[in-house]
């Protein structure tokens, strides 16, 4: 699970051009879409949907489902685990 989270952070930094961040800057429970957290927006949400398909083979067909799944690294990792199970 930890390596999944690490992986996920790397992919997110690359996919979203978060040039100023490193893996260690992103806490597992930091809110990705909050200004106090990572500060992502709805364009990033679409990029995350692409990322889920590209790296994990998971299709998020309903953007609303993404909203819940993409709260934090923790929720994303859980979502991936569940979809894989």
């Amino acid at each position, binding site marked *: 699970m930890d390596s999944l989270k690490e992986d996920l952070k790397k992919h997110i930094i690359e996919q979203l051009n978060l040039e100023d961040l490193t893996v260690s800057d992103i806490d597992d429970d930091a809110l990705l879409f909050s200004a106090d957290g990572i500060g992502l927006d709805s364009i990033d949400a*679409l990029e995350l949907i*692409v990322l889920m398909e590209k790296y994990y083979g998971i299709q998020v067909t309903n*953007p609303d489902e993404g909203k819940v799944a993409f709260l934090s690294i923790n929720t994303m990792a859980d979502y991936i685990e569940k979809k894989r199970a």
Partner: protein
Amino acid sequence: MSVRITGIGIVSAIGLNVAENLFSLKNSKSGIGRIQYLDQNGDYLVGEVKSSNQELVSRVGVKSQPISRTSLLGLAAAREAWGENKHSSGLRTGIISATSVGGMDQTEHFYRDFLDHNNPDFQVLKCHDSGNTTERIAAELGISGYINTLSTACSSGANAIMLGARLIEQGRLDRVLVGGTDALTQFTLNGFRSLMIYDDQWCRPFDESRSGLNLGEGAAFLLMENDKSVDFSGNKTLCCLTGWANAADAYHQTASSPDGKGATMAIQNAIQVSGLSALDISYINAHGTGTKNNDLSESVALLNIFGDNCPDFSSTKPFTGHTLAAAGAIEAVFSVLAIQNGIIFPNLNYSEAITETGLVPITEFQSDQPVTSVLSNSFGFGGNNSSLVFSVNNS
């Protein structure tokens, strides 16, 4: 403010000229269907102009190649709007077109060949840039001097009309052909798919179940003239453009603000320029793309302006598809037709009001209506919002 409109021309999914478009509108005949002409895999619903490039070339009679589909569509519409008008050295004539894709319909084929090392034809890139699209149209019509192109995504066509009116108002031009043109491309189709706002079913503007847009293609132009020009041409005034405004939403790169700020400002300012009051608007041709976001934001803006007295409104995009930079011009021609004929167009594919706003569009074709002023909205990416007001000619 008041600028005369004396000519109109249009090519869209519902017809190759004004008469054909009017017939389709009166008979609730949509032009959206499965892909026939675009080189694209997949079973998408699109509003294609029912003519191949070859057919368009012979229709408009251009000889020199390469030429983009965007130019061909534009030229067909511009020719119709220009009609039998004559050139005169005493009149300053200009043209302002709008396009978002320019010659991308050619470029995307070039680029595929380029990537595949399959002998790409670099010559087609001469018609890539948006300005060239307009220069080609101008050259065919014999217009030189003020030749300009605007590109503000989905509000471009409305902005071209607005700019033309301002140039006439300030005496920089005596007459100007204004409009917009965009061909359907793989680029835009895949682009809107990537935004997850492309509906695989028929687009359903202002409906609770709406889930995206269907792209279309086409072009429309209007001829605007000042008094000096009308004295020369003897043209009859179809109606007048009386109000216009553009405002930035400054909320998000693609999404409209939930409070409809930019849209509200554009509508309010356009009505103010026209010297009318909100109560004078007989019909609103809405932007109404069918995306969750646009239709809600636009509805909120309509409530902001009109409160409980929202005039009859509809989106005509279920007829034509969303034609991007041409949309504002195509819907301007529909607005002129509404005033000329006293008609209001139905919002096809509607069944249930948006929960948050409850606004109900016109769903059946209406004739014998006293249509004196029409508001036409065009809102685009980057929060670019424009509104126009068309009114009966009182002079």
